[in-house]
């Protein structure tokens, strides 16, 4: 579904991504791991169009999406959540998700119909599956950090993506919240037939839900393979797993 081939991106003299390769097949859960500063977030920013690549190819469903602006890439079926909470703090929880649903249904430019009555069911069903129903009228900025991270994912679901990219979905969460969130993600993947690409620091989580793992270091892909292959790879052990 998604192929990334020898992708490069530099900021001034610093090569943030320097030869990343990644394959994500439909229905798969793929994790990207690597030490801090390995270029994981930059890679996600390149895939979703938030940053422009310098070189390399990003192919989604057979089409090179490297030159498209973020909103076009979203319309192709890629949604993302962010490592640092990135929501609409002044809108309600309901409003946060509804904006995405309206955008997905191409109804955002409707000028005179009250938004109150549009896309309500779709929005509510997302809130329900994320366990946010009881907070739908709260102002998003007033939620706890954990809930904001969940809302973060809920907004991304509003676009009914085929490929959902989660950038450290559990960053800043307590161990219990982390556990619950990852189970939620797993359930979502099953229920909605989502393909998920995520990055995460907690190795237990990665090895418990990912089907394929890509390891990055200094902006470069060391290996992508099954859990066994990654665990047994010497270079990975040296660079990352064993080093801790």
């Amino acid at each position, binding site marked *: 579904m998604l192929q990334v081939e020898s992708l490069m991106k530099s900021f001034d003299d610093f090569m943030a991504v320097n030869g990343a390769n990644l394959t994500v097949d439909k229905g798969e859960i793929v994790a990207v791991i690597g030490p801090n500063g390995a270029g994981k977030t930059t890679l996600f920013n390149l895939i979703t169009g938030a940053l422009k690549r310098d070189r390399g190819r990003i192919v989604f469903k057979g089409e090179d999406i490297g030159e498209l602006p973020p909103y076009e890439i979203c319309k192709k079926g890629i949604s993302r959540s962010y490592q640092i909470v990135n929501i*609409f703090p*002044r809108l309600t929880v309901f409003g946060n998700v509804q*904006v995405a649903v309206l955008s997905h249904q191409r109804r955002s*430019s409707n000028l005179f119909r009250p938004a109150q009555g549009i896309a309500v069911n779709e929005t509510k069903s997302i809130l329900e599956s994320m366990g946010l129903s009881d907070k739908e009228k709260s102002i998003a900025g007033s939620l706890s950090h954990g809930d904001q991270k969940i809302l973060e994912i809920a*907004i991304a679901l509003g676009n009914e993506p085929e490929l959902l990219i989660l950038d450290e979905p559990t960053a800043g969460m307590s161990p219990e919240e982390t556990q619950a969130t990852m189970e939620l993600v797993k359930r979502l993947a099953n229920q909605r037939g989502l393909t998920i690409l995520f990055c995460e620091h907690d190795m237990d989580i990665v090895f418990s839900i990912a089907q394929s793992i890509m390891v990055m270091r200094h902006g470069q892909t060391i290996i992508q393979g099954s859990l066994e292959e990654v665990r047994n790879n010497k270079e990975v052990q040296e660079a990352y797993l064993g080093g801790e």
Partner: protein
Amino acid sequence: MFKNVVRSKRFGLVAAIFVVLFILPLFVPRFFVYIFALIYVTSLLAMSLNMVVGHGGLFQFHHGVFYGVGAYAVALMLTKSSLPMWFGFIVGPVVAAIIGLIIGWFCVRLTRLYFGMLQISLGSLIWAIVFRWYSFTGGDDGIHGIPMPSLISSLNSSYYFILIILVICLILMYMILKSPFGNTLQAIRDNSQRCEAIGINIKRYQLGGIVVATFFAGVAGVLFVVLERSVFPDLLFWVLSLEIFIMCLLGGWFTFAGPLLGAAITVALRTFVGRYTEYWTLILGIILILVIFFLPEGVMGFFQDLFKPGTKKVAERGKG
């Protein structure tokens, strides 16, 4: 249930206020009728600015231009063409929206302060044209004694006309604010990066917001001509743009009706304090400083917080 009651109560309050405003000319002297009409015109202008500033998060620093363009368009139509008079009333807002589209098309390419700077430059360009083009616009003399349709030629009838148009515009603006488009615009204000990531072409929506806002500014310009029967280049000068920006700040730019209140306060100060000293802006400045320090959500925002406990903290967190 409860929500419905609160809502109908609020609706009742708003309706009562407008009923009082409608019968006002029967009780107060002419001077006050004029001042109230002026407040309505200024309110509409401030409200239109707030659509892009408060709800759209754009630094529309030179909104006065579109007010002036609307006013000049109708003034020129009424004095220089033989087309039906009422036709000019439609032309004003449309021309303002077209100029809004052109200036906005350039401005949305930039963000934040740069957006504002470019807007000031392009707006000042239009001011300069109006100011210098004596043969067409009357230059710095402006145009005076503009004929009005007889239906709205007296002060009282123009008062009613302005009030009715204001009410219609407020209803339209409220509908737009609560529509998917309005919600999307507010989402862009809150977080434009995220909006792009959920498939929203933010520049297109910002431009759309500017066109709608400049249309309403044009309506305000037309109403100004109805009230004053004259136009002059000061309508497009940046000082006025700053003044309406202050009105939004003063009233509370995250509220719907805040700018209305801000406009009323500013016009009242200019009229009643301005009578004693030409330095009335000094008092406006002091009030503004106090508002920014003690009521960061504006006067209207403050009252809303009073009646809706819990929202104040949210607003503070929202900034973080």
